[in-house]
């Protein structure tokens, strides 16, 4: 993550504040910063989304391409994740500096989507063993202001919600040769169901309590954090501990309960914003990057 230097006294101030449930910007331990979500910002992708969480700015683009299914799962399509930490986000990401963090985030995304119910992969299949849809999800980190994983997972969910995959038909002629036909109407697409797509909730342990949505300064005071991937129904799909400090099993249990609670609210807010945006229709005013 981006490194911010703090003096001992500043760290003490932050830690004591968290114990009293009053963080530097007046939030409680379970409050998120204001989130701005916008989809369909990149025109040449199948789906895209931009999420701003405080000073963290993430752009996700999804491209649907046709390819061959994996050998062990011939009836399903799959997702490929790639994360690019732009040098704009933090000085240490210059050159190859952001590669480590990028692979870490991509591996986390692979893990949280590595189950049967997150995305309906069978709907991405066109011809078993021959053709399927591969969704390439590209994440671009524009600005780093703390709490990267949460913002990225929100952006990925929003981009998948916005993804439109062209409808194709498989025609079989007399010789048994299969032909794929694309519909003439460019708006004839299938939408993915993102009901079960999980979001990551990062909980950072500061002192005796844990906080949700930590800023860069708060992350510098925390020795251990727990990344929990939660679906909209409150089901935990995967969990990972980060940081060099240790966590008591009781704390882990408490943090998991918090994440389930917080995760459900996160999903309801995101669903309502995405539906509100969709209801504005294609004529809505797009803010984009120059707003």
């Amino acid at each position, binding site marked *: 993550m981006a490194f911010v*230097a*703090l*003096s*001992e*006294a*500043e760290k*003490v*101030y932050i830690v*004591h*504040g968290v114990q*009293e449930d*009053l*963080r*530097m*910007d*007046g*939030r*409680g331990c*379970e*409050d*998120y*910063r*204001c*989130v*701005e*979500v*916008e989809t369909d910002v990149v025109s040449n992708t199948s789906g895209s989304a931009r999420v*701003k969480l405080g000073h963290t700015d993430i752009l996700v683009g999804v491209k649907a391409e046709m390819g061959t299914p994996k050998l062990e799962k011939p009836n399903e399509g799959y997702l490929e994740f790639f994360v690019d930490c732009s040098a704009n986000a933090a000085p240490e990401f210059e050159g190859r500096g952001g590669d480590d963090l990028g692979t870490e985030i991509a591996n986390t995304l692979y893990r949280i989507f590595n189950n049967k119910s997150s995305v309906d992969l069978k709907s991405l299949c066109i011809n078993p063993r021959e053709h399927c849809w591969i969704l390439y999800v590209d994440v671009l980190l524009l600005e780093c202001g703390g709490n990267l994983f949460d913002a990225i997972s929100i952006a990925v969910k929003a981009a998948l919600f916005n993804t439109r995959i062209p409808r194709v038909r498989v025609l079989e002629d007399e010789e048994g040769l299969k032909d794929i036909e694309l519909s003439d109407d460019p708006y004839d697409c299938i939408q993915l169901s993102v009901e079960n797509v999980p979001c990551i909730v990062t909980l950072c342990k500061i002192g005796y309590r844990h906080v*949700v949505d930590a800023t860069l300064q708060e992350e510098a005071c925390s020795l251990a954090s727990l990344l929990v991937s939660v679906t909209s129904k409150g089901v935990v799909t995967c969990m990972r501990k980060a940081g060099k400090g240790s966590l008591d099993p009781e704390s882990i249990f408490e943090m998991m309960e918090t994440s389930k*609670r*917080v995760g459900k*609210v*996160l999903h309801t*807010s*995101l669903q*309502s*914003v995405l539906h*509100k*945006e969709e209801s504005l229709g294609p004529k809505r*005013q797009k*803010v984009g990057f120059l*707003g």
Partner: protein
Amino acid sequence: MAMEMRLPVARKPLSESLGRETKKHLVVPGDTITTDTGFMRGHGTYMGEEKLIASVAGSVERVNKLVCVKALKTRYHGEVGDIVVGRITERRRSAKDELAMRGFLQEGDLISAEVQAVFSDGAVSLHTRSLKYGKLGQGVLVQVSPSLVKRQKTHFHDLPCGASVILGNNGFIWIYPTPEHKEEDAGGFTANLEPVSLADREVISRLRNCIISLATQRMLLYDTSILYCYEASLPHQIKDILKPEIMEEIVMETRQRLLEQEG
């Protein structure tokens, strides 16, 4: 727990919301300001081909015969006598330095100091030769653009709302709880690590959010503007101040109060 997600809203140009009739004369580097040669040129301008050309991006200010361009966003330029708040990033690694500074200042510490001299390449040398300067203890640092900090007689303020601020000319603003004993100022080299009371914390967090709102709306920062903004923000919860609509409302009220006070 609070969670708010919203769709982004395009920013309105500031002059529209202020209802100003006279628009500011904005220039970018290379723009011609005037072809009239009767003017004296000030900061941010240079003479070329009998025209006055801007060298920075900002708004043109005219005072009688002097024309200068006030840059909207600049790096800090040191002047002798400026108060700055700084963070130690690197130290001299010599035995003499270790003996002299051991235990007092570590890397990452914040200090307040005064500019003693400015070198030709822009580097400044600082001194802390007074008890009011020195290592800073518990508090919150806010970083804003240096052009937003107003030049005043004193940059150390004890605000009546219950906290103190140091408005560094370099854009680093330090908010800390007012020390109870008057002899013990923000300086010295031993930091007090006792927990700060909840009431003080609320004041400090509110001030921090107010300063960030003022900086986002490009208002000049000085003790009066910060205080008016604090008072305008009292009806709202601390964490709500950073929401765009509430931020606009509070800063608008502050601006009006400041205009009334001047006029």
